[in-house]
């Protein structure tokens, strides 16, 4: 049995942004939901003015461990996740060694359990060593203690069409999904930024939209042909949104993800040559940003995934062409989505819950995540102050990465508390303690 997680009464939170209600949390579940609940023996949290949402689930996180503990560890990355309102993250497979065996995914899973900040769900590599040549032991990873359901070579595209077809077919055996990093490699050799007006002026090699769109078009047709489940990572172009919309209309089993940075930032920022804006896929144009927002609002894009990618500072304090690609995102995702989708009137908080919790949990097949905030459900809850505004300071984040492209921006929305299976990992906007089921002592320095 799980150790006791205490009793908490959340008083007067606007559930999914709707009418205020009380939520009584006991033994890891929502014991009661109602008005004027008794606080007998419970720690009361005054949530007037706060929005209660289901704990967020990230389908796309780079925790860097094992192998690049100078960039991030499971401990630091999951602290960042908890502070960002997450109760589950999918750890991408491009670690060193690559998460392409049951041993490595179980190691990452155990590190997540030991940290106790969120549920860490390892993603398994599709191919051995991400090399794109032979299938990794997908079944062994699925059967392992980590119960892997999502497989991805993220960072690299599974570009061989036969290999992609086989992967899509094979994961049907255990209800898996292939999450594709859609990037045609020949069209993007040496690519540095979005190919268009800005790259022409800056003299940086272009990453054309067609390199993403052509792979997505191929993959949705493959998924249809073999009757499998496809997830498209970090969709970044207007054309990709159209292809996915078309595929969904045909009944193809495809889900898609957009990152917070692609919902807000454009390639105009690259004019500074500041590598904090270097990311893969690259920042696109304003027309793409608008299409991505519309796609997320109308359900063409199912989820927001952070693609949180911390890097040591020396990998960004250099020439653009030398810099690593990637941005941190766990601690800014909620605010950026509020800013781009809710404050613009494109979505409600209920929609927010769908794209950041219910839909990503469904894609990853996480049974106890993304659930409604009702009595009897697991108590994965985040309390948000939607009226708060804050200025992003990467040096005050829990992630080891200082590479936030939102540095210096004022953003709305602040996570006040995060409950992970009934335990507050975040309280009063500050990190509290890991879940008591964590193997290591709470409040490690």
């Amino acid at each position, binding site marked *: 049995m799980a150790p006791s997680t205490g009793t908490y009464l959340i008083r007067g939170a606007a559930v999914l942004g709707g009418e205020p209600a009380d939520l009584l949390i006991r033994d890891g579940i929502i014991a009661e939901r109602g008005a004027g609940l008794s606080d007998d023996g419970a720690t009361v949290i005054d949530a007037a003015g706060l929005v209660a949402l289901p704990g967020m689930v990230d389908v796309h996180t780079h925790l860097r461990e094992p192998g690049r503990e100078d960039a991030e560890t499971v401990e630091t990355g999951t602290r960042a996740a908890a502070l960002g309102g997450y109760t589950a993250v999918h750890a991408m497979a491009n670690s060193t060694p690559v998460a392409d065996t049951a041993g490595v995914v179980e190691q990452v899973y155990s590190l997540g359990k030991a940290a106790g900040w969120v549920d860490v769900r390892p993603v398994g590599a599709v191919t051995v060593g991400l090399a794109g040549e032979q299938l990794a032991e997908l079944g062994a990873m699925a059967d392992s203690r980590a119960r892997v359901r999502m497989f991805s070579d993220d960072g690299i595209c599974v570009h061989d069409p036969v290999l992609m077809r086989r992967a899509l077919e094979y994961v049907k055996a255990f209800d898996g999904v292939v999450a594709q990093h859609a990037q045609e490699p020949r069209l993007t050799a040496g690519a540095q930024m979005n190919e268009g007006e800005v790259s*022409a002026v800056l003299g940086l090699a272009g990453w054309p939209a067609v390199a993403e769109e052509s792979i997505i078009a191929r993959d949705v047709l493959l998924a249809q042909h073999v009757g499998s489940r496809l997830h498209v990572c970090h969709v970044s172009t207007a054309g990709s949104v159209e292809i996915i919309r078309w595929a969904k209309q045909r009944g193809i089993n495809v889900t898609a993800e957009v990152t917070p940075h692609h919902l807000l930032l454009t390639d105009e920022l690259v004019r500074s040559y500041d590598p904090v804006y270097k990311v893969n896929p690259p920042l696109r144009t304003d027309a793409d940003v608008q299409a991505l927002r519309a796609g997320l609002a109308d359900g063409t894009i199912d989820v927001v995934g952070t693609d949180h990618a911390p890097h040591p500072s020396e990998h960004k304090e250099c020439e*653009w062409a030398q810099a690593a690609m990637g941005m941190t995102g766990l601690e800014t995702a909620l605010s950026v989505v509020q800013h781009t989708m809710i404050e613009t009137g494109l979505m409600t908080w209920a929609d927010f819950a769908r794209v950041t919790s219910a839909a990503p949990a469904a894609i990853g097949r996480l049974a106890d995540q993304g659930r409604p905030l009702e009595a009897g459900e697991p108590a994965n809850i985040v309390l948000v102050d939607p009226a708060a505004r804050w200025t992003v300071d990467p040096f005050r984040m829990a992630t080891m990465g200082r590479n936030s492209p939102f540095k210096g921006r004022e953003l709305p929305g602040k996570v006040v508390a995060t409950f992970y299976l009934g335990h507050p990992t975040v309280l009063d906007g500050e990190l509290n303690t890991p879940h008591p089921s964590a193997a290591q002592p709470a409040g490690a320095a």
Partner: protein
Amino acid sequence: MKHLLSTQDLSRANAIRILDTAEEMSAVGDREVKKLPALRGRTVVNLFFEDSTRTRISFEAAAKRLSADVINFAAKGSSVSKGESLKDTAQTLSAMGADAVVIRHWASGAPHRLAATDWIDAGVINAGDGTHEHPTQALLDAFTMRRHWAKLAGTESEGANLKGMRVAIAGDVLHSRVARSNVWLLRTLGAEVTLVAPPTLLPVGVEKWPCAVSYNLDDTLAQGVDAMMMLRVQGERMNASYFPSTREYSRRWGFDDNRLRTLDRLGMKDTIIMHPGPMNRGLEISAAAADSPRSTVLAQVRNGVSVRMAALYLLLSGDTREPATTPVLATAGTTPSTKEAN
């Protein structure tokens, strides 16, 4: 002027100020003692992450004619081998007391990084970055064109612009920092620019540039050209399928003997032929064209020193006044006192 990073952000007034200052500097080059004390005690570092003897010696000559101390720093590291970090190198130069850094780099934007970060406080001159810009090359090209254009008009170069001049730039625009810098600067100075290239060697997005684009060199020549600039074509482009063969390239886009005769046939007796060098004779330009009286190749090299003297002088003299109020040097041809440099 704190830095000279690109011509895109260079105002017309500043561009003309640099060109006018270069005219004054050019007069120094005609004297027996080709030296001014203007930058005595100042240190100019030539920081080259990419080999370019031509550009380096041009800057070196410019700095020395202004009496500056010159340090040449050939940094290791390329796009494939990482080598010297830009940040560490910059901080080292800063500790050595560099007043200006002339940087040549294979990576687009490297000079911007130096100027934007706190790694070094010196003035930065972009001596060519990746496939981005090469502003002093464009300035020396414009200087050369302006002299020619003013002479045809029977006026002085000083203060003049390039209004109405028809300039064609032919070759590998996609990978050319020279083309980019020229397009922005020539437009700023009032010239009408046409880029001529195979479609594979034009960047996506070129349609937004302030110039015309042509795939046909003969059509462009037939419409009338006052300055014809040929760009160097790297042989390696052929292996990447940018064009089928060097022979086909030079037939369609090279300035060959036939096209040299075309200028005569069409009565364009004053059209000049330019090349930033080094030339691939027989590929983008024929030997006869390169050596003809129309060719300004050597004048461009000579003018390069004057333009770079002007850039260094304006960066290091601390003169941040708006241009067109006072001449930079008290009187053309006279030797300014060292006081002005401090």
